[in-house]
């Protein structure tokens, strides 16, 4: 201990009693400490009494005998060891396995979280929706526009739609759009538009209702309300403005846009779980069954392929449509899992 010389002239017994250095000297008396305090008591002879008294207090307090209990130490340990044994056997039965389960659950959760994060990050903030065969799904977009997806279809869009950019969305399959009008009247700007990317086309609208069907290289666009602009860039570029009631089909293999025989109202009948047969050949109906419901169909009566029907049939399920065509064309349908072999009865 480093001794700091202090002025002890004002020290009383209690002051010595409190003094860190003094306590140390009394309790841990080494040669250095003894020499220091002997020198001090020679220096302050009038403090000897106070020093001795403080020393006596400290020693009396410090050297008290350790209490000797009447109870037995070994017996107490045996009791403790008994309790420990009981707790150990319980631990092995319940707590340890539980702890292990908790540990693994936590690890699994961490891994899962990691995977989700990686997926989120790798999709560059894209949000996507997709449907399986035979299922419809309604998606409300951030701007409150509503997209109804037909079976076996998907959309994706950038999560962060900024108000100064056109709203953009990518489509595979078939969907019906009800786009919310966000432009202020007579003050239309580029950023108010809504764009659907399908095949190699860009469809630009404001607030409208339209159906887009993209199957087998053919993209059918049917406009029910508002205005729609079809734009094709690159080779064979064109622009076409659609009016309500227009329905156009674009063949991406030929880069050819043609007006359709079928009307927009018929093309969106699927959203009401119906199939409007006007303008459909049997082959086209079978294509719908393949595209939307996931069947693999072989038609063993090629003469029937171009036959037509009219009227509307319920289309809650593929069975409804199959029932109708079987009755009307008098067909035999042989089903093996998803494979349908259709022949003349």
């Amino acid at each position, binding site marked *: 201990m480093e001794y700091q010389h202090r002025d002890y002239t004002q020290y009383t017994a*209690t002051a010595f009693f409190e003094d860190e250095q003094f306590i140390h000297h009394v309790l841990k008396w080494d040669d250095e400490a003894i020499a220091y305090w002997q020198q001090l008591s020679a220096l302050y002879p009038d403090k000897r009494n106070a020093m001795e008294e403080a020393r006596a207090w400290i020693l009396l307090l410090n050297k008290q005998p350790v209490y000797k209990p009447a109870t037995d130490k070994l017996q107490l340990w045996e009791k*403790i060891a008994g309790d420990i044994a009981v707790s150990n056997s319980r631990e092995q039965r319940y707590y340890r396995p539980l702890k292990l389960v908790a540990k693994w659950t936590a690890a699994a959760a961490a891994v899962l979280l990691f995977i989700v994060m990686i997926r989120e990050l790798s999709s560059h903030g894209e949000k996507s929706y997709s449907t399986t065969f035979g299922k419809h799904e309604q998606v409300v977009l951030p701007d409150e526009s509503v997209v109804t997806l037909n079976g076996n279809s998907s959309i994706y869009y950038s999560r962060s739609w900024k108000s100064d950019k056109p709203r953009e969305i990518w489509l595979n399959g078939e969907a019906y759009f009800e786009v919310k009008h966000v432009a202020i009247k007579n003050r239309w700007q580029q950023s108010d538009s809504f764009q659907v990317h399908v095949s190699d086309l860009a469809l630009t609208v404001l607030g409208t209702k339209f159906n887009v069907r993209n199957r087998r290289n053919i993209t059918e666009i049917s406009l029910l309300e508002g205005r729609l602009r079809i734009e094709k860039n690159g080779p064979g570029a064109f622009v076409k403005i659609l009016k309500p009631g227009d329905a156009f089909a674009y063949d991406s293999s030929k880069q050819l846009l043609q007006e359709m025989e079928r009307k927009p109202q018929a093309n969106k009948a699927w959203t009401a779980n119906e199939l409007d047969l006007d303008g459909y050949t049997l082959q086209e109906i079978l294509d719908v069954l393949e595209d939307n419901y996931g069947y693999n169909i072989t038609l063993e009566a090629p003469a029937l392929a171009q036959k037509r029907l009219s009227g509307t049939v319920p289309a809650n399920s593929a069975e409804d449509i199959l029932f109708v065509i079987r009755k009307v064309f008098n067909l035999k349908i042989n089903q093996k899992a998803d494979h349908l072999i259709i022949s003349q009865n």
Partner: protein
Amino acid sequence: MQDDKDIWEAFRSGDESSLQIIFDKYYAPLFNYGHRFSADDHLIEDALQDLFVKLWKNRDSIKDTNSVKNYLYKSFRRVLLRILEVQQRKYSFAVLDEWSEPGGEMAYDQTMISRERLEEIRGNLLAALEKMTPRQREIIHLRYYEEMEYEEIAALMQLSVSSTYKLLYKAIDTLRQYLSKTDLLILLTAVSLKKI
């Protein structure tokens, strides 16, 4: 101290014999400390049993510690006070009137202090301790008997360091007030003796 740490480490990793070593080493000092709170040996035993069984059950969550002694004292004090509280006994800290015969340490300059004077000092100290509050007595015990630092006492008694200083100051002030009276008495007798 290093020994303590190694044993503590072994105990925490599930070695029961290490806990027994700790029990062996701290049984007497903890019992001695607990005895100040209650003269009921069985109650102290219950507290010790409770403490060591809990230590074992919680060994996975017990942290490394700089001082096993402080950790045990603190846990023991908590367990013991809890038991006393449940039994609705008041917190107390006994004054023991047993003192060791002053041995070698006391004797190194016996010439300066007579046996009678020592008895007198002892009587005064005892009387002063009786006048203190239980908390003051406990802090005196921790400081002079257990030789703990302020920070250690603060952690043990769950006080801030500054309140610990204050509490010890008050305890010593009680001592001062009491002893200055008897000092004065001694002075007066000395003066009156001179007159005769």
